[in-house]
C-alpha cells in the first residue's frame, strides 16, 4: 500500500512543471531533480543525526532522441547511501547508467540515506554530475545536519487556534475548540443525502517558531479521535484515503528559515465534514519532515455543534404563527367570535368537553403507558385518540357550524380545559395550540368546507340536501391531511428544539406520514359523514 501510493505520488510529482521546483537543475535537454528528503519540493530542511531519509533523483528528457546517460552523486561525509543497491557505488557515492529513449521519458530512483550519528553539525554540499552525449552537467545542493535534540529544542509551538479566522488569528466570534456544522446529521435532510455546513470551511491555525540556525521543514498532522474508542473518526480516514495517505488526518508541511515564525492554516472543507455533533478529541502532531515520530503533540477536546436550521426555523415559524394567531384573535375578536350565537358557544364548549374526555384524558393515560412500552413508536397507538378521534370531532363540528372562528374556539377551549383540569400548561402547548388553530383555520379556508357552494346545486338552483360528493370529501381529507402532516413535522421539530430531544430522520418521516397525514386522511371523510348525520338532528 505504502509502495503503491508512493509511486502514484511520485508520478504526479514528476508531472509537475519546473516552476514548482525552482531548485531543479535544467540542462538544455534534460530536467534533473534532486530532492532531499523526497517530497520536500522546493523547501529545504535540516536532517537529524541518526535518521534515515529518502532522496529522490530523477532525470526527464525534453528531446526526442535516444540518449545514454550516466549519473554520479557524491555524498558528503556523514551521509551514507543504504538502498537500492543497484545504484550504490560505495556508501559515499551513487552511480547509475540508463537510457532515455524519447521525449518525456523519465528515469528516477528513490535512494535511502542514513545520517551518521557522529557527523558534525553544519551545512553540507551534495554534488551531482550528469554525463550524456559527451556533455557534462554539474550541480551542487546543500543540506544541513544537526542533532535531533537540537532540532526539537529550536522548534516552538506558539499557538494552536481552533477555530481560526481567514487571517489565521483565533476566531473570537466563535467558541474555542468548537466546530459548527449545519445539517451534518440532519434528521430530515440526511434522508435525501443533502449536507451543508455553516461555514465554507473550518480553519485551524498553527503558529510555529524556529529559533535554531538551520532551515527546517516540519510536518503537521491533525487528527480527530472518537473519545470513547480512541480511533480516528471515519470520515477523516476516508478523506485521507482519497489523498493517498495512510495516516487518517489532515496533513501539511511548513518550512521555517532560521529565526523565523510563521502561521500555517489547516483547512477542512465543509462539504467534507461528516461528523455527528458531540465531544471528540483533537490532536496536533509536529515532527521534522521525513523523520519518524512527532516531537510536539498537543491534544485537546473538540466540541462539534450542529446547527440544525430545520429545527430552528420550525421553532421560529411556530412562534411567529402562534403570535399571529393570538394577535389576530385579539384584534379580530369581534369578526371571529361576534357572529357566534350563544347556542354555538355552548355547542363548541360541549364539543371541547367531549374532546377533552375522549381525547385528552385517554391520551394522557394511554400515552404514558404506551410511551413506556413502545417508546417513540407509541404514536401508532396513541395517534388513534390524539389524531383520529380529535379530527372526527373537529370535522363533524365544522360540518355542523361551517364558520371561521369555530376551530379557534374549539382548540382554545380544549387547551384551557386541559390546563384547568390537568394543569397541562407547558411552553410548548402555549406555542402549539394557537399555531394549530391558525393552521387548521387556514386548512378550513382552503378546503372550502364553510363556503356556501360546497354542496352541489340541483337543476332548480337550490342547494341539494344530499351528501357531500366524494371528490370534495377527498379534497377536504387531503387538505387536512397535509395540514396535519405539516403540524406533525413542526410539532416534532419544536419538541426537539425546546426539549433538546433527538429523533432520526426516518422516524420523523414515519411520524409525519402516519400520525400526521394517514390518520387524518382516513378520518376526515368519517367526520364529514358524522357531521352530516348530526346536522339532521340539529335541524330537527
Amino acid at each position, binding site marked *: 500500500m505504502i509502495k503503491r501510493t508512493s509511486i502514484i505520488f511520485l508520478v504526479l510529482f514528476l508531472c509537475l512543471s519546473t516552476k514548482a521546483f525552482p531548485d531543479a537543475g535544467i540542462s538544455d535537454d534534460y530536467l534533473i531533480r534532486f530532492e532531499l528528503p523526497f517530497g520536500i519540493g522546493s523547501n529545504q530542511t535540516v536532517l537529524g543525526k541518526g535518521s534515515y531519509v529518502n532522496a529522490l533523483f530523477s532525470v526527464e528528457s525534453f528531446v526526442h532522441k535516444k540518449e545514454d546517460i550516466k549519473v554520479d552523486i557524491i555524498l558528503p561525509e556523514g551521509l551514507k547511501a543504504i538502498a537500492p543497491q543497484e545504484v550504490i557505488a560505495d556508501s559515499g557515492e551513487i552511480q547509475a547508467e540508463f537510457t532515455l529513449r524519447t521525449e518525456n521519458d523519465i528515469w528516477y530512483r528513490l535512494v535511502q540515506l542514513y545520517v551518521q550519528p557522529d557527523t558534525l553539525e553544519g551545512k553540507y554540499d551534495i554534488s551531482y554530475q550528469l554525463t550524456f552525449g559527451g556533455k557534462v552537467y554539474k550541480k551542487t545542493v546543500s543540506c544541513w545536519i544537526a542533532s535531533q535534540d537540537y532540532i526539537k529544542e529550536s522548534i516552538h509551538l506558539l499557538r494552536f487556534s481552533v477555530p481560526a479566522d481567514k487571517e489565521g488569528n483565533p476566531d*473570537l*466570534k*466563535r*467558541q474555542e475548540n468548537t466546530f*459548527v456544522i449545519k445539517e451534518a446529521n440532519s434528521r430530515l435532510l440526511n434522508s435525501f443525502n443533502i449536507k451543508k455546513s455553516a*461555514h465554507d470551511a473550518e480553519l485551524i491555525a498553527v503558529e510555529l517558531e524556529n529559533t535554531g540556525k538551520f532551515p527546517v521543514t516540519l510536518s503537521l498532522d491533525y487528527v480527530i479521535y*472518537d473519545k*470513547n*474508542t480512541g480511533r480516528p473518526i471515519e470520515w477523516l480516514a476516508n478523506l485521507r484515503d482519497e489523498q493517498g495517505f495512510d495516516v487518517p488526518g489532515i496533513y501539511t508541511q511548513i518550512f521555517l528559515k532560521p529565526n523565523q515564525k510563521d502561521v500555517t492554516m489547516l483547512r477542512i472543507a465543509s462539504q467534507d465534514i461528516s461528523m*455527528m455533533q458531540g465531544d*471528540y478529541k483533537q490532536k496536533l502532531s509536529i515532527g521534522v519532515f521525513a523523520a519518524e515520530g512527532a516531537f510536539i503533540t498537543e491534544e485537546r477536546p473538540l466540541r*462539534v455543534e450542529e446547527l440544525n436550521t430545520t429545527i*430552528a426555523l420550525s421553532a421560529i415559524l411556530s412562534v411567529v404563527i402562534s403570535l399571529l394567531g393570538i394577535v389576530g*384573535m*385579539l384584534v379580530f375578536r369581534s369578526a371571529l*367570535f361576534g357572529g357566534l*350565537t*350563544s*347556542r354555538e*358557544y*355552548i*355547542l*363548541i*364548549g*360541549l364539543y*371541547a*368537553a367531549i374532546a377533552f*374526555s375522549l381525547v385528552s384524558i385517554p391520551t394522557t393515560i394511554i400515552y*404514558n*403507558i404506551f*410511551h*413506556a412500552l413502545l*417508546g*417513540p413508536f407509541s404514536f401508532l397507538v396513541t395517534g*388513534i385518540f390524539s389524531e383520529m378521534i380529535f379530527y372526527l370531532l373537529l370535522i363533524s363540528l365544522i360540518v355542523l357550524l361551517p364558520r371561521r372562528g369555530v376551530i379557534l374556539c374549539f382548540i*382554545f377551549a380544549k387547551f*384551557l*380545559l386541559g390546563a*384547568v*383540569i*390537568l*394543569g*397541562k*400548561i*407547558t*411552553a*410548548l402547548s*402555549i406555542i402549539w395550540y394557537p399555531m394549530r388553530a391558525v393552521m387548521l383555520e387556514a386548512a378550513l379556508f382552503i378546503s372550502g368546507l364553510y363556503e356556501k357552494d360546497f354542496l352541489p346545486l340541483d337543476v332548480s338552483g337550490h342547494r341539494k340536501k344530499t351528501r357531500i360528493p366524494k371528490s370534495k370529501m377527498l379534497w377536504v381529507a387531503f387538505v387536512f391531511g397535509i395540514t396535519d402532516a405539516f403540524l406533525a413535522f413542526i410539532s416534532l421539530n419544536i419538541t426537539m428544539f425546546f426539549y433538546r430531544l*433527538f*429523533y*432520526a430522520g*426516518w*422516524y420523523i418521516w414515519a411520524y409525519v406520514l402516519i400520525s400526521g397525514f394517514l390518520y387524518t386522511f*382516513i*378520518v376526515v371523510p*368519517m367526520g364529514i*359523514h*358524522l357531521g352530516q*348525520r348530526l346536522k339532521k338532528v*340539529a335541524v330537527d
Partner: protein
Amino acid sequence: MKSMALFSPRQKIVLILISAFYAISTDNPHLMGGYFIFMVALFLTAGVDSRKKRVWLAAVVLTLWGTIFSQSLFYAKMPRTILFSLINKDTPFVGAFTGGLNFYKEGIEYGFIQAMRFGITLTCGLLVCFTTESKDILRAAIRLKLPYSLSFMVSIGLRFIPLIVAETKTVVSAQRMRGFSPMRSGLIKPIKTARTVLLPILVNSIRRSSMLSLSVESRHFGRKQAFYLPREKKENIFINTALFCLGLLIITMGIIKAFYFLYLSSFFYLPELRIIYSLAEKYI
C-alpha cells in the same frame, strides 16, 4: 403547613408558566435537577393524598422512562456506545431504511436529563391541579384577562365533563353488550365503532346546547358581560415577590440563551457579550 396553601390560584397559574419556561431555558443538569427537586418538595408538602401521590409518581416514572427509551434509541451525539441493537443495519429493508436502531448507553443519561424538563412541568401541573378547584383556576384565568367567550365555553365544558363521561360509560357498556371491542380489528374498525359511540353523545350535546342556549339567553347572556367573580383573597406578598424574581430570572436566562445560540451559530457576535456567552456555556 401545606406549602400550596400560601398560593392563590392566580399565583399558581404564574408558577406553572414560570416552571414551563424554566424547563426549556436551561441546559444545566444541576439547575434542572435542583428545580425538579424543589417542585417535588412542594408537591410532597402540599398535603396531597396518597392516591394522588401514586398517580403523580406513576406519571413521572412513566414519563422519565418513555423519554429515556426514545433518547437511548435516537441519541445523536458523540461519543456513543451501543449497548444492544434492536434493528441491525444489515437487516433487509428495515435496516436499510432506519440505518440500524441501537440502544445507546449515553442516551440513557441524556434522556434522563431531558426527561427532567417534562418532570418539572408535569409535577407543577399536577400539583396545581390536585390542590386547586378547577373553577378557581378558571376564575384566576378570567382575572388574567382570558377572553370572556372562551371562559364561558370552558365553564360549560367543566360543568358537563362529568355528565359526558357518565354518558360515554353508558354508551360503551351498551356497545360492549353488542360485542364492541376496541383495537380488535385493525385501524378502521375501531374508528367506525368509535363513530357509533360518539353519535349518541354528540346528539345529546346538540340537544343540550339548544336547551342551554334558551336558558342563558333568557337570562340576558351575551347582551352585556355580566358575571359574578367572588372577591379573591389577598395574595401573599412574599410569594408575589418570589414569583416576580423567578420570572425575571427566567426572562434573563432566556435572553442569555438566545444570545448564546446566535453566537454559537455564527449569526451574531459582540465582543462585549463574551461574559454572557461564557455564562451561558458554563452555567445555563
